[in-house]
């Protein structure tokens, strides 16, 4: 460990002191003077026409301040979608309006119909019950394949069908891919479901709107991963408030996992209502509301095929995916099954020809959008399950088949439009094989058998694209925003620093790891650096935290700004030391003249910047504060190899995870403890998806898993102790830190490892089962074993 607590030190997370002692300041902890409470009346049916809303009785009830319905939002903008996908035929996706409150129709259980604002929450709720909504229930479409059939009920009457887009990637390759399949020596096919998930951050969403008549300023306190993005989307597209009159604050946020990226109706409602009634308006989601209003994740149905030549080299991959959009397009929804999924279909393998088809479909369900990994877990799962199946069909070792097809030369341009900069997949796999004592597996399996259990080993690789990404590239791909990041580094007179970053921290530990980078660059104690984030009033425009981009993109912006600081500080030091700028070296917080023992301390230089008595005022300005925006030139490509050992109880179908190993290449590591924590959490979510979690709707569009009584979250005793390694880092070549990002890896890499292990166990037990759809609950595994 570096003695200075800089890059590479496992510093304890300084934010945990407040989180663990109950001193975190979450949005719901805030109460504004004169605050009112908002309750949202939501649709109880999946699809219906609103013939009338009668609020008369409710409005007369005690404590009611205002009631808003769709009518109040007729002149107001639609909740925007941040990404436009172009379909196979060059046409833009079908993009329906997304009203803040239902206009004429409700389209999913939980769709907001009216907002009641009252002195207390209970009064608001009482009044909401007194609102009479005349809804004519319409047939709902829940199943994606049903939804795209001719004559299916339409979620949006003004669209031609429920098909949002039919995307082909790379369309020009289609013919060559089909040809490769015709010529293949072997073809492996797999049909599977990537189960729909509810993100379930510990803290539910909250929004508090406030309006100051004195200066015409609106403020929104919200549980967001990206306050600037909310300011832009809500201000410019929904409510028409210019940025200088709108402040968005995301204080401590208790987990996001993607679902707190998006702009939600409740944010606009609270902001709009506060201005209307000239009092603060607070809304806090209940857990039940979260299940039916937070954007869900995943929900793909896929057929994937792999073509191999006679030597078991992969020659082509072809996929056909239906991706659920839900009832409306959430902020980044269209990009998830396309640019965050199709571009990853090469995985770690040198398959020369790939064609990905994705049909995005509207259904009467909660909108689906990015959830930890977003598109990449879906790509990894299908590919790595498929390779396992191919190995079994061909009678070859699944690890050997992978190794044979690994990409080994970097940079590597995939046939799906991305260029991997670095990686060493064999080294990572070597490490994994030693971590899991593969040689000892047969003995462990025999031991399990003695106890009446079936043991299986599952291995897989993953690659992901993080640090999203070059703005000009994503612009071509349909993004309606830039994806740079920003930082302002302010050095105080006595040498301490404040970094104002656009990257929001909601569990990632930025307040600890970001200072380590600056400490390393200047050679000072990381405790001299404070991180400020989450408030548009005091941070530069940032695009937020998702896609494991904070350190790679936000951290790089901070590095650039700090470089500017150091350059200027060197000039000041040169002046103080009466030397040339180019002779000044900075080390251990000291500026010295090369080859001499003349030096001046960091603090003396910073003081001179603010007390510029002896200062080159004719050449440089006083003060020491710099801002940098950083726009990356490529994504980063973390990769890894994961392994899972399970036992299956053949009598009950219950799966227990016996061991789990993760070997990751995250490039350079700033804080290994935080990295491990991110991997641990990611694996917990991946295991959750593989074994426990699944959002289920019935045919009428009622959410059967609307609470923790039916939606199973992973608990500590569902998880093993993990073996985690990140010693094979190949630094990213195109960001100044050489970092790749680690936030999503665990959730991406773990589901196929678990499912591969279960299938392996069942096969070893003599069951000819090639796939079971997640979650692999005891009931499902038993049903598969018993042909049901």
């Amino acid at each position, binding site marked *: 460990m570096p003695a200075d607590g800089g890059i590479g030190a496992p510093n304890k997370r300084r934010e945990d002191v407040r989180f663990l002692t109950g001193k975190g300041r979450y949005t719901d902890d805030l109460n504004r003077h004169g605050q009112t409470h908002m309750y949202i009346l939501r649709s109880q049916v999946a699809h219906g026409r609103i013939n009338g809303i009668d609020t008369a009785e409710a409005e007369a009830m005690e404590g009611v301040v205002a009631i808003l319905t769709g009518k109040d939002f007729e002149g107001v903008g639609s909740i925007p979608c941040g990404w436009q996908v172009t379909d196979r035929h060059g046409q833009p996706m079908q993009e329906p309006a997304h009203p803040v409150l239902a206009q004429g129709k409700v389209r999913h259980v939980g769709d907001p119909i009216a907002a009641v604002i009252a002195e207390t929450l209970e009064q608001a709720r009482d009044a909401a019950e007194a609102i009479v909504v005349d809804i004519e229930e319409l047939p709902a479409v829940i199943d994606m394949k049903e939804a795209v059939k001719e004559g299916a009920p339409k979620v949006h009457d003004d669209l031609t069908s429920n098909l949002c887009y039919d995307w082909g990637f790379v369309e020009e390759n289609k013919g060559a891919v089909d040809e490769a399949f015709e010529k293949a020596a072997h073809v492996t096919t797999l049909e599977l479901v990537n189960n729909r998930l509810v993100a379930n951050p510990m803290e539910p969403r909250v929004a508090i709107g406030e309006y100051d008549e004195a200066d015409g300023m609106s403020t929104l306190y919200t549980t967001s991963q990206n306050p600037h993005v909310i300011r832009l989307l809500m201000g410019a597209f929904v409510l028409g408030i210019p940025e200088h009159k709108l402040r968005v604050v995301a204080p401590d946020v208790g987990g996001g996992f993607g679902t707190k990226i998006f702009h939600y109706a409740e944010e606009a409602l609270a902001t709009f209502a506060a201005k209307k009634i000239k009092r603060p308006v607070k809304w806090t989601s209940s857990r039940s509301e979260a299940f039916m209003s937070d954007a869900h994740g995943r929900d793909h149905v896929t057929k994937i095929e792999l073509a191999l030549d006679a030597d078991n080299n992969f020659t082509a991959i072809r996929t056909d995916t239906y991706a659920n959009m839900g009832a409306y397009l959430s902020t980044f929804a269209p990009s998830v099954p396309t640019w965050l999924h199709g571009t990853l279909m090469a995985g770690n393998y040198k398959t020369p020809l790939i064609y990905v088809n994705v049909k995005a479909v509207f259904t009467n369900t909660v909108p689906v959008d990015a959830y930890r990994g977003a598109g990449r877990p879906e790509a990894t799962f299908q590919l790595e399950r498929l390779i396992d199946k191919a190995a079994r069909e061909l009678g070859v070792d699944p690890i050997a088949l992978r190794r044979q097809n690994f990409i080994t030369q970097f940079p590597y341009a995939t046939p799906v439009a991305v260029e991997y900069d670095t990686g060493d997949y064999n080294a990572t796999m070597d490490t994994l094989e030693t971590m899991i004592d593969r040689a000892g597996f047969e003995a462990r399996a025999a031991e399990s058998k003695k106890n009446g259990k079936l043991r299986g080993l599952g291995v897989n690789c993953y690659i992901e694209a993080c640090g999203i990404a070059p703005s000009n590239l994503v612009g071509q791909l349909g993004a309606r925003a830039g994806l740079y990041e920003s930082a302002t580094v302010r050095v105080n007179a006595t040498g301490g620093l404040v970094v104002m970053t656009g990257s929001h921290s909601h569990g990632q530990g930025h307040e600890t790891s970001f200072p380590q980078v600056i400490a390393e660059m200047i050679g000072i104690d990381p405790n001299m650096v404070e991180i400020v984030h989450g408030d548009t009033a005091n941070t530069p425009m940032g695009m937020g935290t998702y896609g494991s981009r904070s350190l790679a993109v936000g951290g790089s912006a901070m590095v650039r700004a700090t470089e500017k600081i150091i350059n200027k500080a060197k000039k000041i030091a040169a002046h103080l030391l009466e030397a040339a700028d180019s002779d000044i070296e900075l080390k251990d917080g000291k500026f010295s003249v090369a080859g001499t023992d003349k030096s001046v301390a960091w603090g003396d230089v910073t003081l001179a910047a603010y007390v510029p008595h002896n200062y080159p005022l004719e050449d440089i300005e006083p003060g020491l504060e710099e801002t940098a925006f950083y726009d990356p030139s490529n994504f980063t490509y973390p990769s890894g190899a994961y392994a899972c050992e399970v036992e299956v109880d053949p009598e009950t179908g219950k799966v227990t995870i016996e061991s789990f190993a993760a070997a990751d290449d995250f490039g350079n590591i700033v804080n290994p403890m935080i990295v491990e924590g991110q991997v641990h959490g990611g694996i917990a979510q991946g295991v959750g998806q593989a074994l426990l979690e699944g959002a*289920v709707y019935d045919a009428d569009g009622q959410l059967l898993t609307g609470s923790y009584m039916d939606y199973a979250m992973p608990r500590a005793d569902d998880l093993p102790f993990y073996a985690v390694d990140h010693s094979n880092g190949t630094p990213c070549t195109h960001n100044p830190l050489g970092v790749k990002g680690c936030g999503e890896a665990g959730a991406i890499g773990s589901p196929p490892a678990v499912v591969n292990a279960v299938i392996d166990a069942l096969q070893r037990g003599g069951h000819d089962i090639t796939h079971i759809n997640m979650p692999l609950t005891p009931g499902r595994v038993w049903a598969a074993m018993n042909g049901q």
Partner: protein
Amino acid sequence: MYAFELERPTSLADAEKAIAGGGQPLSGGQTLIPTLKQRLAMPETLVSLTAIDELKGISKEGDMLVIGGATCHADVAADGSYPALSALAGKIGDPHVRNRGTIGGSLGNNDPSACYPSAALASGATIVTNKRELAADDYFTGLFETALDEGEFIKAVKFPIPEKAAYIKFEQPASRFALVGVFVAKGANGVRVAVTGASEGGVFRWTEAEQALSSNFSASALDGLTVSADNMIGDIHGSKAYRAHLVGVVTKRAVNAC
């Protein structure tokens, strides 16, 4: 939650009066409070039972274990004089639930997936109410249904302590209530097998298994015995067939654990 009156009597007599007057018993609140929060019930008055000493505590009367209706699961778990029952109580919910939730509330509610009903039925317990004593066989009448009349509540539960007993809960993955739970007891009442979690009719006795075990108290005596899937619960956590299958597996495991 709708507004309600809360009474907190400290004597049984006051509680009886309040309940006779239309109040609904509130014990640990682990079921009732979430229900109220979701506005799924609208009681005018709740009568809290947990401040009444006579309703709390565990004592032995001869070979009977008598548990006050307002005794929390954690106390039963810690008691140990009826090991299988203590083990059952120790696996209900989490520490919060066990320190609030009570046996009277659990049996009063009769959730088809709850644990205690199987213990009461398999042990041949007696439910002591403020009006009468009811044999467990007569007490459970269906899903969330009991033989309790209006104004009647559970004062205590008397468990004959069997010679051997065990409860095995196969957990529903989300709620960790019983997907199938089986309580097997062998004692003065013979062998009794009660199954919870599985049936659309709530907790039930598996009489075929009881007969088989009466002549040969070993898991192998159950070989080939099955319950019909017809009346089993089928949901996203397991089909009817799966639950029917689990009844056999879990019963064997309970016998082995005796």
